[in-house]
């Protein structure tokens, strides 16, 4: 019976579990208790497994990493963020961070699932059998997942900062990590995201330099702009010129800009490349 489930059904299951993680955290906070880190981590892990299966099925049917339309990009970004959380999240020792990660996963997966036109056209073999360009795309999207988690940490930083400045430390604020811990998390995530995106661009550069006609200038400009913006933010933070609230707001704004830049990437897909499109009736 499980074998009969479609990739989207697995992904709906994953979204449901991410929502369960959010609910676990929310109910605990509303009842005045500390959210159970183990329960939230368990819900996220279970959701991750279902999403992994769903994306695996999709990848199998599209003949490569599932990054062929906006739906797949959002799903892959959520999956990347959750992957990173599952690997390093426990070191944050914050169940609230887990609840917010679950929220990010739920938001990205539910948004993509609830807009059928995003998945109306499924492109297959979009990388034309070139493993390097597939690696470039996968790494680039993984870095977006890292930046998603960075945006989340930045949001928590701003909440913590607000609570300390407004002298309101009860409720949700009681369970937030310290401002220094959040700052360290932000810097590490930004460094990791920039490093991964740099590697992605390096692989893409090799491919592009051999055949410049295959990549639209809009996509190239958008991608490079995102990389420059994040690298600049990292440099300014290390140099001590972009700090605290301004740094957190910058990270949030950059993630929104990075998501918007995907429009440019999506819109500049080369119709003639070695790819086939399949319109799917939802």
């Amino acid at each position, binding site marked *: 019976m499980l074998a009969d489930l479609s990739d989207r059904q697995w992904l709906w299951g994953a979204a449901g579990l991410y929502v369960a993680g959010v609910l676990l955290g929310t109910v605990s906070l509303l009842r005045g208790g500390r959210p159970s880190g183990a329960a939230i981590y368990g819900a996220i892990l279970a959701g991750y497994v279902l999403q992994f299966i769903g994306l695996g099925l999709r990848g199998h049917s599209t003949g490569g990493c599932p990054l062929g339309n906006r739906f797949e990009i959002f799903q892959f970004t959520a999956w990347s963020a959750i992957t990173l959380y599952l690997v390093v999240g426990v070191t944050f020792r914050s169940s609230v961070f887990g609840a917010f990660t679950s929220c990010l996963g739920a938001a990205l997966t539910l948004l993509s699932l609830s807009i059928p036109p995003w998945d109306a056209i499924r492109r297959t073999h979009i990388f034309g059998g070139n493993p390097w360009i597939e690696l470039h795309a996968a790494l680039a999207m993984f870095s977006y997942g890292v930046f998603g988690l960075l945006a989340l940490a930045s949001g928590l930083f701003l909440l913590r900062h607000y609570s300390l400045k407004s002298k309101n*430390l009860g409720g949700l604020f009681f369970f937030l990590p310290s401002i220094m811990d959040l700052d360290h998390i932000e810097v590490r995530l930004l460094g990791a995201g920039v490093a991964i995106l740099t590697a992605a661009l390096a692989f893409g550069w090799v491919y592009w330099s051999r055949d410049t006609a295959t990549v639209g200038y809009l996509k190239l400009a958008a991608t490079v702009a995102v990389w420059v913006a994040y690298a600049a933010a990292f440099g300014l933070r290390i140099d001590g010129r972009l700090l605290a609230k301004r740094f957190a707001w910058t990270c949030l704004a950059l993630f929104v800009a990075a998501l918007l830049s995907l429009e440019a990437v999506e819109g500049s897909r080369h119709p003639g490349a070695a790819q086939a499109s399949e319109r799917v009736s939802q």
Partner: protein
Amino acid sequence: MSEPRLFVIGASHNQAPLEVRERLALVSEEGIRADLAAVPGLREFAVLNTCNRVEFYGVGDDGGAEASVQAAYCARQRLSAGEFERFRFRLSGRDAVLHLLEVASGLDSQLLGENEIFGQVKEAYAAAQSCGSTGAVLNRVFQKSFQAAKHVRTHTGISSGRVSVANVAVDLACNIFGSLANSRVLVLGTGEIGGGTAKAFRSRGAADLAVAGRRIERVAEVASGLGAETMHFDERDSRLADYDIVVCSTSAPGFVLSTHAIAAAMRRRPARPLLLIDLALPRDVESSAADLQNVFLYNLDDLAKIAEQNRSAREAEIDRCRAMLAQRADGLWRRVQHHLLAARPRAGAPRRGPDAAGQAASP
């Protein structure tokens, strides 16, 4: 024959004022344990002795065991039975179980929801276990009380937030710096409140403390009590950038830290936040410093307000905690009754002492 009976007898801050509790407190528990071990019909017992309560938990063959426990205690403390009975409480059966659950959870504490009592109950149980005075009943009741206390503390806000100004200040620092092990604390002034707050920082892991004041001898005395360095008061502005947390409690008539000096310090350490705790009246820190980036300024009123909010939040949780514990006490009492029935003495059978009961314990 009647079944054995679970009981608790004692006195706490609820019944006895401080001067009475001073007389009720046991200096050492060794002697009373030896006395209780010799009480006929007392199968199991544990002694909980803290600054706010003296309580004897026991399982006895009949009501006579309770009277004997009271007599042994009064004899040791040189109290008359009448004197003790004015302040004592007695509970048995399910009420005794519920009482222990509430004590372990901090619900019966003077400082509602405090954590120290949990450790004290654990110590009392460990001591009773090590001298073989617990058996199947007390083992189960104490162990379940620990689980219940953990559950209540985790799932309600009964222990959330601090309720003293010094501890609120330390919590604030933890909200900013996480661990205090790498945070440097400067205490300006040698007043009692500043010293108390510095002690709270030290006890929560702050390793690097310095004290500055106008009176050199007093500074040296306070610093020595805290294991802190001394600093000349006039150096406070120039060395401000070296510290993460500054506790001010001088009696100076004007500001001792100006916004200008703090801004200058922050330019030298822009990435690291600065927490200013102003406990002085009149205030030591210029209030406009709160507007600086990465500077967090709290005065005495702010801290008192947070402590009061925490206290109210804890009080709001009492009913929910009581309901949770009552439910657990009901279930636990039902299971304990089976043990008590099983332990009912048969005609002609030898009486089981604490040692025998301890061997039959089922953790």
